[in-house]
């Protein structure tokens, strides 16, 4: 299929707004889905070479995924956690299970070494042979119900399963280069890791298999005579939960070129599909099928968060309008996807708009999937500042790409109420109120892009326009990181969130959702404006099923649709 576009990409001023980023949904460009497609395409094989668990489910298990060139193994340490220590917060020091992704197949010496480090998580040190560390807690709402049901020879309640969606919930998945783990440099020549976050997604995918095995193990040890295994029709309804907080939010600011490539791929995919003159019957049917599935599954999108509940309610109303619009033959005219998008943008809310972006690219894998290969970036290649750029040229970039920041009145206390900092307790980003935190010293994270760009713009005015930026920076090194960002703009137009992240109304949650949507997360269930629960890999095939089923037809299947 042709990949030229006659429809322009949506401009960064439209896309890179917090509210829109916070409405993104998973798509076929999400990393969980690309992982499963690759493993299916390359015929990966899976095994569980180690399973040493006692009656309480304490022990070690190893899951190995063998690709065409090399293997990776999830090493799982299962613990007997005192329920009073099962904290929902990141300050926890013990968990129901802890994991690491090992490069290859670990021997007994490796398992012994890891058994002393992985259960300690941040307090331990892993090695160049490991790519991630992570941990998970059992769902208080569901885990015991499933074990007890299976032990009694019964299947767990389907409605309860759908209400929660997972047996265990990860509270952190630390990737490359942290706590001693190997950095991405080691992955440079590995195709299976060339797209972003592939090994972290593999970790979670294998954790999901572990969660099923551990409940079946516990049920069997509890009642050998009566215990049954999970019914195949129920197994896929379990994903892996995740609780994600502020630690993830500054990632989007700290990796501007990478974020550009994610968003740019998504926008390019949309533009390619919008540029099509006609839609084939098969593509129209596929779009309709997925829209129908999502419409029906939306009722299983539960949340206790009032804001998100209102958004879901609005989305459901918009879906009803969209279905009527489609039924009137909206896709039978020329340039159907472009017309549809124009209509959606004019008539529906942000949640629905961004859902439609995900849906319209679904039938066109052969037109858009190559974009996954553009979603990584060598950040070092864009690290060096062009000091020969003149003050005039930098001012032009600021005027053109940061106009949104220059218009903000930063003297208004509400414009700077939020103060991002790193917590001494957990070494993780946090956000508080400036009035409380600013007196403690210059401890603010470099998140205040809009405010500081505005400051730089004022400083630039004092310099002759022909001055090289190298000279400006010699006297204003406080703006060095901003010059680096601004110089990315030409090549990476989607590199900057175009909103004031310090404003009292700015929602960190929107940044979390943006990043998680690229992972492929579903069922966003915010618990405040700064953390959310989500579900990963729900309805996906399990490793043992992958060879014999469709690898990529699971993300819009929820509830009674599965």
């Amino acid at each position: 299929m042709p990949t030229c576009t006659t429809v322009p990409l949506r401009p960064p001023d439209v896309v890179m707004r917090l509210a829109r980023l916070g409405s993104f949904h998973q798509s076929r460009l999400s990393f969980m889905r690309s992982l499963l497609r690759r493993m299916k395409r390359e015929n990966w094989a899976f095994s569980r070479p180690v399973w040493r668990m006692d009656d309480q489910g304490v022990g070690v298990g190893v899951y190995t995924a063998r690709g065409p060139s090399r293997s990776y193994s999830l090493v799982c340490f299962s613990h007997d956690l005192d329920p009073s220590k099962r904290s929902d917060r990141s300050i926890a020091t013990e968990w129901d299970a802890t994991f690491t992704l090992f490069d290859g197949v670990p021997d007994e010496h490796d398992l012994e070494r890891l058994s002393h480090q992985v259960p300690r998580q941040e307090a331990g040190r892993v090695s160049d042979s490991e790519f991630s560390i992570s941990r998970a807690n059992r769902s208080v709402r569901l885990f015991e119900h499933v074990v007890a049901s299976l032990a009694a020879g019964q299947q767990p309640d389907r409605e309860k399963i759908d209400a929660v969606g997972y047996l265990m919930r990860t509270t952190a998945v630390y990737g490359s280069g942290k706590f001693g783990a190997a950095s991405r440099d080691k992955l440079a020549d590995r195709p299976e890791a060339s797209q972003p976050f592939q090994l972290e997604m593999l970790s979670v995918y294998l954790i999901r298999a572990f969660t099923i095995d551990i409940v079946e193990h516990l049920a069997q040890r509890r009642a050998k005579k009566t215990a049954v295994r999970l019914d195949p029709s129920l197994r896929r309804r379990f994903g892996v939960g995740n609780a994600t907080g502020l630690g993830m939010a500054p990632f989007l600011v700290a990796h501007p070129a990478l974020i550009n490539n994610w968003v740019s791929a998504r926008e390019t995919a949309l533009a390619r599909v919008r540029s099509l003159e006609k839609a084939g019957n098969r593509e129209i049917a596929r779009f309709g099928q997925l829209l129908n599935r999502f419409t029906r599954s939306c009722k299983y999108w539960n949340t206790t968060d009032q804001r998100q509940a209102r958004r879901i309610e609005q989305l459901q109303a918009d879906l009803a309008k969209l279905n009527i619009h489609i039924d009137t033959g909206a896709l039978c005219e020329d340039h159907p996807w472009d017309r549809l998008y124009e209509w959606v943008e004019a008539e529906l809310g942000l949640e629905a708009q961004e859902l439609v972006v995900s849906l319209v690219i679904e039938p066109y894998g052969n037109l858009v999937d190559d974009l996954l290969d553009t979603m990584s970036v060598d950040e070092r290649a864009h690290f060096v500042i062009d000091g020969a750029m003149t003050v005039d040229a930098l001012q032009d970039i600021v005027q053109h790409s940061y106009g949104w920041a220059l218009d903000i009145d930063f003297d208004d206390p509400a414009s700077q109420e939020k103060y991002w900092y790193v917590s001494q307790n957990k070494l993780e980003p946090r956000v508080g109120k400036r009035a409380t935190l600013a007196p403690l010293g210059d401890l603010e994270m470099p998140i205040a892009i809009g405010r500081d760009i505005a400051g730089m713009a004022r400083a630039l005015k004092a310099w002759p326009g022909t001055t090289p930026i190298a000279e400006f920076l010699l006297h204003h090194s406080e703006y060095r990181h901003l010059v680096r960002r601004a110089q990315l703009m030409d090549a990476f137009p989607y590199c900057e969130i175009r909103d004031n992240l310090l404003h009292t109304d700015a929602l960190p949650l929107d940044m979390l959702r943006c990043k998680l949507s690229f992972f492929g997360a579903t069922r966003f269930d915010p618990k405040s404006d700064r953390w959310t629960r989500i579900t990963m890999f729900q309805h996906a095939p399990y490793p043992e099923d992958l060879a014999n089923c469709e690898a990529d037809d699971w993300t819009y299947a929820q509830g009674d649709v599965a």
Partner: protein
Amino acid sequence: MSDFSIKELEMLCLKAARGAGYPWGLAEEAGFSAGWAAKRGVTDLADFAAHLQAVGMHGHEKMTPKQGEFDSQHHFGPMCPIIMGTYLSDRGRQIDLQRTVVVEELACPLYLLAFLASVSSATDDWIAVSAPTFNAVVSADGLEISFVHGTRLLQAPETVTLSKAEFRPQAVQPVHARVSLRPEVLEQLTTLAARTYVPESDELMAADAGGANVDTD
């Protein structure tokens, strides 16, 4: 000894540099420079940590060269290799290495090398570096270095001469994926990095990310 990936080491050095008082952009460059030198095995970062301590005490502003002037008359004390290096890197192609560049009283000159690699990348020149304690040739991706005393010592500020090299680096330093830090160096860097953290009060912790203390999920 603690074993680090280069990325983790760079992040630690970045935070330590920020803790020492560098602005964010310079702290990023400091992390890059420290990682570049460490993975080539030419430093154990003890002098980097000591340099950061000095920056923390005196302020980086006093170690900044005046525009285009690198002799000791134009700065107040030892010149910072990070600031000097970023200035050279920023100027890139504008640097004329046909004319020898003399930088007087440069603190920890080994941390200039990463930036000279950037200059080399921009100019396609190989750069010869001469100092009382070492001689080196730097290219965009390689480093040849010899220490006058056979091994490197904790460096006092030195006068460094930069010029265009006739030959590319020959006996190139191997690039390591991991670096070990001695406990005292790690302690110094982590102590500096800790200056960027906020000790959380109960009030702050109550408002931070995360749910209830008891997991009800």
